[in-house]
């Protein structure tokens, strides 16, 4: 992407996000839009957003690929890796060379390298003193991220944070845990729907997710809603 094309894309993305935030929106759809945009405009391979559940365990809420391998890399990062480090410290963690990581990250390192990732970046999703999750960027090349990419990525993380905290805040007393739990609970039915479609159409689960998204987009429905109707067999993808 050229510099101008990139700036244009950034501006239009933030316009879309601002628009989403002023109307009724689904949190998961918003998070999905964010990770997809990250992958598109930043110089990275994959992106994922992890949110803390009510026990403080970080869980993948949205990711650019729904391949279980990628999700596992991110979950391992949330157990012992840059992701948990960023979450606990509330700071951005840059890992320009995954191979040079501390030994306590061994499982993450082995799995990430096995998937072809060389460097990683984890940014906190913070509102004042509270960190609610992290934005994780994975890259297949070595080195630190471009400064401008870091600024843009943090802006995305901030938008995601606001998007989650603002969502249904008026009707729901705005309890932070409740908001996060809503987003994470939506994952359950999406995973189930992926399984239904994967089995119905005999395709891999990541392909199943793509089909579900395509359907949701073309029918202008929230992912979560389409997923729920797939699981109850009201919708059958052909």
């Amino acid at each position: 992407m050229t510099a101008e094309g990139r700036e244009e894309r950034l501006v239009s993305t933030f316009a879309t996000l601002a628009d989403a935030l002023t109307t009724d929106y689904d949190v998961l759809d918003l998070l999905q839009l964010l990770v997809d945009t990250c992958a598109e405009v930043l110089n990275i391979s994959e992106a994922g957003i992890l949110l803390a559940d009510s026990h403080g365990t970080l869980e993948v809420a949205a990711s650019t690929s729904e391949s279980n391998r990628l999700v596992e890399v991110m979950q391992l990062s949330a157990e012992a890796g840059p992701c948990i480090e960023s979450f606990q410290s509330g700071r951005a963690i840059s890992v320009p060379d995954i191979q040079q990581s501390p030994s306590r990250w061994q499982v993450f390192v082995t799995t990430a390298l096995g998937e072809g990732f060389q460097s990683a970046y984890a940014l906190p999703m913070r509102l004042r003193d509270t960190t609610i999750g992290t934005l994780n960027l994975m890259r297949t090349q070595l080195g630190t991220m471009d400064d401008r990419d870091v600024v843009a990525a943090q802006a995305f993380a901030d938008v995601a944070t606001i998007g989650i905290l603002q969502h249904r805040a008026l009707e729901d007393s705005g309890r932070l845990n409740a908001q996060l739990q809503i987003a994470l609970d939506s994952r359950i039915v999406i995973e189930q729907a992926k399984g239904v479609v994967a089995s119905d159409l005999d395709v891999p689960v990541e392909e199943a997710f793509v089909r579900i998204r395509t359907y949701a987009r073309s029918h202008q429905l929230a992912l979560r809603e389409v997923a729920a109707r797939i699981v109850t067999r009201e919708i059958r993808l052909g």
Partner: protein
Amino acid sequence: MHETEWDGSSGYPSQNTDLSVQFVSLLPVDGAAVSTLGKLLGSETISATSPLAARIDEMQFDLGEGPCWDAMRSFSPVIEPDLGDRWDRWPAFIDAIRSGGVTSIFAFPLHVGPLQIGAVDLFTQRRLELSADDTDRAARLAEKVSREVLRTALISATSADGLERPFSRRLVHQATGMVVSQLEVSAEDAELIIKGHAFAQGKSMMEIAQQVIDRNLNFRHLPVDGGDQ
């Protein structure tokens, strides 16, 4: 292992006594017994309306034959309005319960999807032809009881087996969806089936989920286990 006369203390929560009573209050039968059978949960009467009802089931455990076993293995009701005609089918069983004065017996399978859990026995002392409506009603109640029994048994039997890990949970949810598609059951039933199968195999839900996702396990083709003692 089984007492000849049921004393009502099977180790199951006491509210499960209601399980068999439901059948008697809904249908024109004299007694009912709900039992688990076979490998999955072991053979045990978990609810019976009378000592005779319990004894009818226990005889079947000991002899390895009878309407309960046939209903469970065939996944369909066994309807016998006149036991006197069926010496050929279960000679030892009929001989054993002769003193009870039972004429008609109806057994309905307890299963969730392909998982064989046990059976419910209904009996009358006078001869009874069970109407189509009553058969239907009993089958539906048996279906409901199946889930209840399996759920109760699994609560105490299974640990969280690694499901505190988000990645494991994710795989279990995906596998649940695949079982919904395989068996055309609800997500709730699908998860129960995975859990029950994990328990039967002595594996974690995560391991079973992985087999389903890898297409190495399809519950539609799950070999139906005869449920031998």
